[in-house]
């Protein structure tokens, strides 16, 4: 779900960088307000590396396999650190695997990062409900995981189809967008279930990871 270099016009790339810079600036400001922001940097950095590695685990869905996007889980665990973490992870993906790109780093960070912040918001909502803790973690884990992927997919398909500089008729574009979205519901549900399972696993084994409020 990354836009490669050379696919979209430079205007789109630059707009992507502008939005990412603004959002990251806001996230860094929120991080700075923390009591001891520098103490959490090593933790957030190592979690970034961990998420990058976990991203390489494939879930078999015959005849192919998918990998988890994990932006929902990153949002849920890292909070505002998720945005710089995603920018860094995308940068590594671009220069190590040539997946995504340097000119499109901004727009890809918008696609992955903003839904992560949304997922963080959704996951935090669980504190407002007072039914039993495990059910609550599972429910909001599923919602944040699935919405992370679904919103990313909507942003990705919308941008790709609108920004590719080819003469494609409006009707084909609309159909392609709807088709892509329908196709993404399966990975979104799988992601939601996986996030639910990971969140509930962490809740049982190491609850502080979910509560650390990065």
């Amino acid at each position, binding site marked *: 779900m990354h836009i490669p*270099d050379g696919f979209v016009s430079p205007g789109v790339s630059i707009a992507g960088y502008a939005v990412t810079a603004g959002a990251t600036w806001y996230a860094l400001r929120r991080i700075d307000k923390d009591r001891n922001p520098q103490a959490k*940097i090593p933790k957030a950095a*190592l979690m970034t590396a961990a998420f990058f*590695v976990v991203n390489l685990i494939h*879930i078999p869905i015959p005849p192919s396999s998918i990998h988890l996007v994990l932006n929902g889980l990153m949002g849920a665990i890292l909070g505002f650190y998720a945005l710089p973490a995603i920018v860094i992870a995308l940068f590594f993906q671009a220069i190590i695997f040539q997946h995504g790109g340097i*000119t499109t780093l901004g727009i890809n960070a918008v696609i992955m990062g903003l839904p992560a912040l949304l997922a963080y918001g959704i996951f935090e909502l669980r504190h407002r409900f007072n039914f039993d803790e495990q059910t609550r973690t599972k429910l909001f884990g599923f919602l944040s995981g699935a919405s992370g992927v679904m919103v990313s997919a909507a942003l990705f398909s919308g941008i790709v189809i609108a920004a590719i500089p080819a003469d494609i008729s409006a009707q084909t574009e609309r159909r392609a967008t709807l088709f892509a979205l329908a196709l993404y519901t399966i990975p979104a549900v799988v992601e939601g279930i996986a996030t639910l399972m990971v969140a509930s696993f*962490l809740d049982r084994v190491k609850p502080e990871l979910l509560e650390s409020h990065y």
Partner: protein
Amino acid sequence: MKLGLDEYAELSSPMHHWEQRSKVVAIVTLMFAFAFVNDIILLPVMLLVTAVLYALSRLPLSFLLTRLRYPGLFILAMIVLILFASTGNTVLAQVGPLSITREGVETVALIAARFFCIITVSLILFGTAPFLTSIKAMRSLGLPDVMVDMSLLSYRYLEEFGKTRHTMQNAMQLRGFESNRFSFHTLQVLSGLVGSLLIRSYDRSERVNHAMRMRGYGQSQLSHIHHQEDFALDICEANRTSQILFWSVLGAATILVAVSIFL
């Protein structure tokens, strides 16, 4: 997981001698200039600039080819899609109900060439200097300290965690776990793997955090001092190779953008 990003960073070539800070500025400008190219006439120029830079870097061709393999497949799929989806007046070929038009071919050639050239120059940028130098260069260009510290630390642990994941997945397979069928059980086991990896990394991060704080991290403003002496403050103070390459690359980028605007 072998990163091998800067395995050729120690070679000797004009690109390696080019001071990294001005290299980041010039090459990133060139990448955006490539993204601007929207006319088929400029493709040979763009490819020529890329080829000259790659030749100057003395990086082996195999380095480029292995790195292009994975994204190449994805690009190929996208190209076929766009080729058949785009509409135009001049039909070149007809395959059943689908037609390939001249406009479609031109769009695809532009996308593929831009993609290839941008990826190649980004490989030159990050392949001709140690990764640490590249990050330092970006810090001296104004990348926030939080981002710098996080990038360096996560880069340090990427390979390490990659190995841990490999070992854990091997262990699962040796115990009879078959990961080629989809079931809730498979998903549960893989989620357990994800969770365990996250917990291991978290525990590790606690120890790293303590170790770093014991050594004074976060206590003083030391980490905020920008080590600008690593780089020339002004391009005029850089070595001759840097100056020539900097101005030539910037010149090429400006010409490409100017011509693209006029065409």
